[in-house]
């Protein structure tokens, strides 16, 4: 693989993403993915969530969480395919799929958080 000066930056974003994901996502999955839908805890009211999302700090924090988590996924998944399945001849396709997907997802996250009333 040729040396790319962008590689250290990708590693840095991977680490930052890994940290943010480890700190915030377990609690979010437990609450939004299990406790609220299954009724273990009372789900927050629509008005409460709207007020929470209405605050710019929440939106910026969620946007950063989404971007870093997606870049973390891109970097790690790329190496999962690379090492796990050893599909090295498809390197270009894998890179475009992973980082391209992360960029598209980030833009979508930005749009969805922007248009919250």
């Amino acid at each position: 693989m040729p040396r790319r000066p962008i590689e250290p930056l990708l590693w840095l974003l991977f680490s930052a993403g890994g940290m943010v994901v480890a700190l915030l996502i377990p609690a979010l999955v437990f609450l939004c993915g299990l406790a609220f839908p299954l009724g273990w805890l009372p789900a927050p009211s629509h008005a409460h969530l709207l007020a929470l999302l209405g605050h710019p700090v929440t939106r910026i924090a969620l946007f950063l969480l989404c971007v870093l988590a997606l870049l973390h996924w891109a970097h790690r998944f790329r190496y999962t395919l690379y090492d796990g399945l050893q599909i090295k001849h498809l390197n270009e396709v894998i890179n475009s799929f992973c980082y391209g997907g992360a960029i598209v997802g980030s833009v979508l996250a930005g749009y969805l958080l922007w248009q919250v009333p």
Partner: protein
Amino acid sequence: MPRRVPHDDRPAYTEFLPRWYRPRMSTYWWLKRRAYLTFILRELSSVFVAWFVVFLLMLVAAVSRGEESYRQFLSWSGSPVVVVLNLVSLFFVVFHAVTWFNLAPQAMPVRLRGKRIPGSWVTASNYAAWAVASALVAWLLLGG
């Protein structure tokens, strides 16, 4: 008569460069040892991270579309397939968090006045930060 190649730490390129010996590795090499399997499972946790970003954005979209679509989202997220997916995701993201924090002392050796702080302190402070962050998320979502 073969040409002498000097024994240097940077050997000059010769046209007798031997073909590298690369044994073919099985695609399922990571099933052979427990440590390898743990490695691949840790790497796969990223897929569930990506899924959760999608789930979170769907929640945001539902909330901004109004109360009715938020209620629909809640009942959809209670359907068995989504619950099982989120249960598996919870396992993987906790696995990611634990392995990440346990690795932290190796990844960032902290020095204080020239002395290296014991690794267990770094790990412990990471777990403390995890507890604080989780409590903050719960406090914000449960209404403060």
